[in-house]
């Protein structure tokens, strides 16, 4: 057997065997599959909501486009800075120095990325129920999975080509940046034209944009999103055209390196080394979100506070140094704008009912709580527990816990205020509902922090990140069920929306207090966690 095929197949086989032999991993994967099956099964249940057909599938095109845009931007920026992560460090150390044809090694890299992306993209099936609202069945989700996989692999290869062509050549880098902007000009022009054409009707103009050829023919992103929607809609010829363009581009990009520049090893070295270094740091417990490459200018210095409060003052210093906007930067503004836009679209859509303002606002609250799960879950308070300092500071553990998390609670309260005032004003809901939603948002942060600490009592050291995230998510869901049920029953019984959301907030407060009480003394009586990578 060819050495590269052997490597690819054998590593895959060994990974499978490792899962089968390791009870913890096996349990994790079984749990994952059960969850996946459950989510898929739920999608088969009939809708019992208010009437109305499925949402316009044009929105799905836009959603896929926006999601892929994220990968596109990352690939271009990586291509301009470090190259692509087609290869691992072990490939660099063993394969690159071996007498194997670099062209074959490149194909191996592409195949390896496809294999990894195929596994990593399975999360799309968790969206089966959401996609049902567009009238998309399980087969449609499978098509989306294929399109997403294809698009992400092509963007990876594009990153490598960009690096290969622009490395050490500033003028070419500028050219790539200009070309990237140029790529989106037709889309921007169409957006402006649609907005004018619909007389400033934002939802209508956005929908028209999503269905426009300008979006469909935007390379990679447009081809993938339009191709997926075309196949789902039964327009096979159009689907074949868009996916064909995507495959053609991928092939052309591989050909550029395959034919033109077999000496590409240097182009992937930096990215492979950087990725390896991050993995190594993560494996050693140095989980950090401060990996930004941009140069930070040190202006104001110094740390205030005394005793445990020095932790809070340190966090403020770190936050303001990382971003000039401090606690509430661009992500907060983006969330506020997103929530307001969401409310605007729902409230002014053609099939909006009389309850649309409250429904859109509460839905925005739900989405924001979901997002908070990730921001607080891996927030600074949690990261502080991964290094030794907080354990060794001679202060009472509860004081250290409180001061270490004060920053994130203040951030959540301020962020909640901005988000829900923006969404509330746009949706036209009452001030009471807005204020209670802000409280509910801040209190959810309190619950998440409590779960973080309590989990340390049970988790022990050497935690697998995959298991941790899954257990954490499960814990949050189980814990929030009583509060959500109370809110739903209150709403069904005719209580005002503010009262229903308020009940959820009361539950969060209660749950948060219990969690903190149960975590008493945890910083002096637990194992310092070391987070292992998913699957390691």
């Amino acid at each position, binding site marked *: 057997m060819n050495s590269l095929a052997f490597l690819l197949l054998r590593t895959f086989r060994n990974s499978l065997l490792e899962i089968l032999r390791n009870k913890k991993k096996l349990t994790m994967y079984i749990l994952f599959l059960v969850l996946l099956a459950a989510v898929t099964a739920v999608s088969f249940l009939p809708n019992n909501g208010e009437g109305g057909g499925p949402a316009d599938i044009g929105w799905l095109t836009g959603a896929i486009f926006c999601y892929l845009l994220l990968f596109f931007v990352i690939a271009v920026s990586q291509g301009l800075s470090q190259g692509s992560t087609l290869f691992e460090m072990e490939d660099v150390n063993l394969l690159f120095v071996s007498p194997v044809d670099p062209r074959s090694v490149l194909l191996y890299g592409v195949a390896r990325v496809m294999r990894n992306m195929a596994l990593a993209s399975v999360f799309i099936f968790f969206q089966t129920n959401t996609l049902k609202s567009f009238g998309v069945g399980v087969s449609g989700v499978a098509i989306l999975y294929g399109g997403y996989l294809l698009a992400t692999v092509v963007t990876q290869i594009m990153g490598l080509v960009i690096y290969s062509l622009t490395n050490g050549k500033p003028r070419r880098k500028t050219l790539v940046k200009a070309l990237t902007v140029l790529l989106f000009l037709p889309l921007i022009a169409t957006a402006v034209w649609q907005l004018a054409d619909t007389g400033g009707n934002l939802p209508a103009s956005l929908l028209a944009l999503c269905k426009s050829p300008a979006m469909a023919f935007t390379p990679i992103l447009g081809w993938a999103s339009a191709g997926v929607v075309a196949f789902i809609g039964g327009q096979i010829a159009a689907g074949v055209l868009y996916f064909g363009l995507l495959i053609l581009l991928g092939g052309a990009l591989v050909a550029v390196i395959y034919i033109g520049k077999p000496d590409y090893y240097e182009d992937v070295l930096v990215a492979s080394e950087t990725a390896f270094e991050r993995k190594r740091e993560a494996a050693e417990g140095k989980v950090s979100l401060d990996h930004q490459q941009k140069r930070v200018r040190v202006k104001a210095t110094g740390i205030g506070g005394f005793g445990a409060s020095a932790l809070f003052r340190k966090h403020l210093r770190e936050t303001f140094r990382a971003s000039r906007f401090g606690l509430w930067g661009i992500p907060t503004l983006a969330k506020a704008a997103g929530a307001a836009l969401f409310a605007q679209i729902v409230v002014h859509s053609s099939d909006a009912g009389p309850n649309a303002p409250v429904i859109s606002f509460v839905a925005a609250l739900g989405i924001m709580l979901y997002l908070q799960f990730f921001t607080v879950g891996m927030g600074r308070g949690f990261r502080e527990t991964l*290094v030794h300092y907080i354990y*060794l500071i*001679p202060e009472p553990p509860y004081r250290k816990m409180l001061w270490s998390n004060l920053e994130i609670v203040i951030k959540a309260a301020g962020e909640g205020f901005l988000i829900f005032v923006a969404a509330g004003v746009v949706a036209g809901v009452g001030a009471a509902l807005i204020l209670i939603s802000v409280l509910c948002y801040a209190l959810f942060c309190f619950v998440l922090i409590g779960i973080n600490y309590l989990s340390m009592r049970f988790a022990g050291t050497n935690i697998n990140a995959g298991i941790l995230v899954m257990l954490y998510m499960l814990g949050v869901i189980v814990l929030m069920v009583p509060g959500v049920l109370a809110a739903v029953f209150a709403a069904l019984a005719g209580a005002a929306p503010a009262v229903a959301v308020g009940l959820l907030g009361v539950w969060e407060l209660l749950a948060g207090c219990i969690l903190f009480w149960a975590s008493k003394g945890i910083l002096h009586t637990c194992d310092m966690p070391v987070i292992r990578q998913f699957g390691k």
Partner: protein
Amino acid sequence: MITVFNLTKRYGKLLANDGISLNVSAGEIGVLLGPNGAGKSTLIKSICGLLRFEGSVSIGGHECRSEEAKRLLGYVPEIPAPYPMLTIDEHLQFIAKAYRLDGTWRERADGLLRRFDLDDKRNKLGKELSKGMQQKISVCCALLPEPKAVVFDEPLVGLDPHGIRELKNVILSLRREGIAILISTHIIDSMEENWDVTFIMRDGKIAREVRRDQAIGSLEDAYFSIIGDTAAEGQGT
């Protein structure tokens, strides 16, 4: 000063430390030697109160997880972990504030920075530091509160020759000041001249405790007489 009694640590079914007892007195340098996977790092982390364990560990007579013990203990981890967004100087400020140190800390901090060649790099961010500089700042943070016991986990790894010399000098001056020192290391040569008691670990146990006045031959001879030339290599625990 550092007293460990019957310490046992399990990771699931793996017995990392098995009934370990040791004592390092004030003004003594204790050295922990052993092959990879012998349980040295686990023991060090347990002594510093970073892991749960069975048995007892006291620092200056205080249970190792108590605030009193934390005030007496300095810890230099194997993997230095500076805060990426804090400058070198702010690391020391943070320690001074968090440990509620009195007004004399600044003078000591300046001395430590000078000693480790970090004086002109005070405004460098943690994320900009090389591995060696990270290790140096880690040592400075551990020593700033004037601990009575210091635990070093592989302190010489990553340091340049100047850093190694300075750290050795620091360790000797700490000993002269009556501070108890426990050092885990793979580099036997580095501690050959300066040790008072050595604990040779194997399979999670202390296979032998050697006092300097009882030793026959070098530290290396003592080590290999216990471990042998073909000690099994395992994963660090």
